[in-house]
């Protein structure tokens, strides 16, 4: 470990891994939020036959976005592969089976999305089930992998138990942001349902976040030291405090929704996004500059300087463009999803 590097003045070659871990963190965060809401919508899909129209609206609300959302995962894994190849191998070999299962989940939902609209009518329900099951499989395995990562790939029963808890927590969090997305993008009966879903998922997420926050410093002594060292403790404890406040506020707000003229229908979504950002910065703060907790830091895992430079040049030009045309796409599809038509 050479985390002491941070106390010296950094050379260009030492800066590069920091820039790339920042880029990767950004990609992971954007992925969790964006694919989070469309995975959440998939999990929440109601499966009664009378719900068919609502399923259509829900899936229409994510139609133009899911593909680009998933690309953030490819980018995050890509940056891990490109900038920190050793960490990529280490992490993915430990997570081989859950990663394979997650890919199956992503395949199921990705194709179900298109097949449901185009296949024979009698198969539509089957594809809707596939969509829901694929979404659930994806979120559960992602949560499990997050748990394993935090526990340093420990395979004792208590670490596995924690990973299962994390699987449920992440699934709850994705449902939370998915429900909040639906509150923003739908109206009428479906919106009222989404409000109920959002409240329930919000409370479940809260429990999950509390559980992970308590277990993480207890099992990782380094994390404990980092969080509870004076004077930093005064500052960093702001993260859980603000997070708690947003949870409570959002719950109170959702209780009064939907409001007249659909006022504040976007607020729950952005509050949920804020919670995602806070939780993510908490995790990042726990581990930076380690990339595989307890085993590898970003400087040990980084690729050659000239390769990182080559890709950085492209990233500096292209990432702002990506953000710009992503914003354009969201602008084009602004408003309620019921009006969304195909082709």
């Amino acid at each position, binding site marked *: 470990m050479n985390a002491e590097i941070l106390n010296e003045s950094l050379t260009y070659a030492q800066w590069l891994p920091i820039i790339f871990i920042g880029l990767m963190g950004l990609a992971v965060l954007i992925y969790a939020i964006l694919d989070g809401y469309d995975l959440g919508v998939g999990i929440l899909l109601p499966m009664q036959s009378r719900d*068919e129209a609502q399923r*259509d609206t829900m*899936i*229409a609300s994510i*139609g*133009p976005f899911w*593909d*680009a959302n*998933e*690309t953030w995962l*490819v*980018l995050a*894994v*890509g940056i*891990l*592969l*490109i*900038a920190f*190849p050793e960490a990529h*191998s280490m992490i*993915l*070999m430990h997570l*081989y*089976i859950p*990663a*394979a*299962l997650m*890919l*199956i989940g*992503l*395949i*199921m939902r*990705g*194709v179900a999305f*298109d*097949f449901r*609209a*185009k*296949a024979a*009518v009698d198969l539509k329900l089957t594809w809707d089930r596939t969509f829901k099951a694929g979404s659930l499989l994806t979120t559960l395995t992602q949560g499990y992998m997050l748990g394993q990562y935090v526990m340093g790939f420990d395979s004792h029963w208590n670490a596995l138990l924690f990973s299962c808890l994390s699987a449920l927590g992440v699934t709850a969090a994705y449902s939370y942001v998915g429900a909040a997305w639906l509150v923003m993008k739908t109206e009428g009966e479906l919106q009222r349902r989404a409000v109920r879903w959002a409240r329930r998922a919000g409370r479940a997420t809260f429990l999950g976040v509390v559980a992970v926050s308590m277990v993480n410093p207890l099992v990782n002594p380094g994390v404990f030291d980092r969080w509870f060292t004076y004077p930093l403790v005064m500052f960093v404890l702001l993260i859980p405090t603000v997070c708690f406040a947003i949870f409570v506020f959002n719950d109170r707000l959702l209780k009064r929704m939907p409001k007249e003229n659909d006022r504040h229908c976007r607020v729950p979504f952005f509050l949920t996004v804020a919670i995602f950002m806070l939780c993510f910065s908490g995790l990042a703060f726990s581990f930076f500059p380690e990339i595989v907790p307890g085993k590898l830091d970003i400087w040990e895992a980084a*690729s*050659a300087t*000239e*390769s990182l430079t*080559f*890709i950085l040049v*492209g*990233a500096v030009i*292209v*990432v702002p463009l*990506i953000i710009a*045309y*992503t914003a*354009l*796409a969201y602008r*084009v*599809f602004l408003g309620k999803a019921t009006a969304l*038509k*195909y*082709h």
Partner: protein
Amino acid sequence: MLDTLVLSRIQFAANISFHILFPAITMALAWILFFFKLRYDRTDNPVWMRAYRFWVKVFALTFALGVVSGITMSFQFGTNWPGFMENVGNIAGPLLGYEVLTAFFLEATFLGIMLFGIDRVPSWLHTVSALVVAIGTSLSAFWILALNSWMQTPAGFEIRDGVIHATSWLEVIFNPSFPYRYTHMMLASGLTAAFFVAGLSAYRILKGDEKLAPRLALKTGLVIAAILAPVQAYVGDLHGLNTLKHQPQKVAAMEAIWETQRGAPLLLFAIPDEKERTNHAEIAVPHLASLILTHEVDGEIRGLDEFEGNHPPVAPLFFGFRIMVGMGILMLLTAWTGCYLLIKREELPRWMLRVLVGMTFSGWAAVLAGWYVTEIGRQPWLVTGILRTADAVTPLAPTNVGFSLALYLTVYVILMYAYIHTLKVMALKAVKVEEFETESPSSEGTTSGLPGSAEEGAA
């Protein structure tokens, strides 16, 4: 019990073979769709729009399959071939990174606008979106083929402490085989999509579709195929000569030439015998291989004896190459016959329509056979002269890889069945649905595909 190396190779081959089927269609279909939309903008002829409507749905479905099967690829490198990234990650990483950055986001985002935004954006912006999607798919092919070509014919690098470092990115990207491979693949995609469009349109007409749109699409597909097929033959020849220069052992295996000789015959058929290092049941044309490869009747061709222990397995290359070329000839004949019949009379005879239906997926056969030739032809190397395939494989237990492989294969079989079945359903639905007139490219129908709202894209 199969070991991790064999299982990992089977898994990679299964994943990439399944994956390439879909980009092989969408890379060129994206350009065909742009062409349809552009023609509609220019002529205001609604038939172009109806052709666009049907094919954009096929495109969306095919694209989705390409995306999901592609995501598995980005995990494969790290999970099954860690040695690849450890040794050549400094080259492979940035090329893959540029693919994600410049192509994936571009196509994914603008595809959303292209598919769902037609009545939310001005028509010109919609046409631009179709163009951007086409550019995105071609860019994606650019980067991935740059990497693949570099693995075949590495250039622009040096080795420091056993690890590859780039010295010139231009030489890395434009390595000796890249221009040929890229052109060859783009043309292959063009032919694949052309026969795909012609075949599915012929199917609709055979099933009693009286409308103009499938006839227009059929004609477009046939004309594209008739133009591209001879160009492909020429480019393929150049690519072969390039391979002869940089990877002579691959060409020797393709032609099953065991000993270096002058005036080598072209084997139309043979059964290569790796043990005896000879061929059985040869049917040969004297001197023709030398003539094709060296452009001299008595030109010398280096045989496999010069590369003993360091050349790819002969039989798969020998047969793969013949399947590819055979498909190419069949495509050329079909396309030219079809165009001739179209000029002679308005409507293709039913036998020709049936032939075209039979050729719907002919591109897939040629693309797979061609890729098997070039990829198996690189063995025993993963990166020619730098890294052996066996040295790059994961230390994972065979059971783990076996489990994931079984999982992937099951899913792929189901998906392939669903894909073909759905194409059929879509084509039949398009036959039945009434044709309609539209003033502007307004939308109809929701994503639901509900019976009441499913009358979209009627033509």
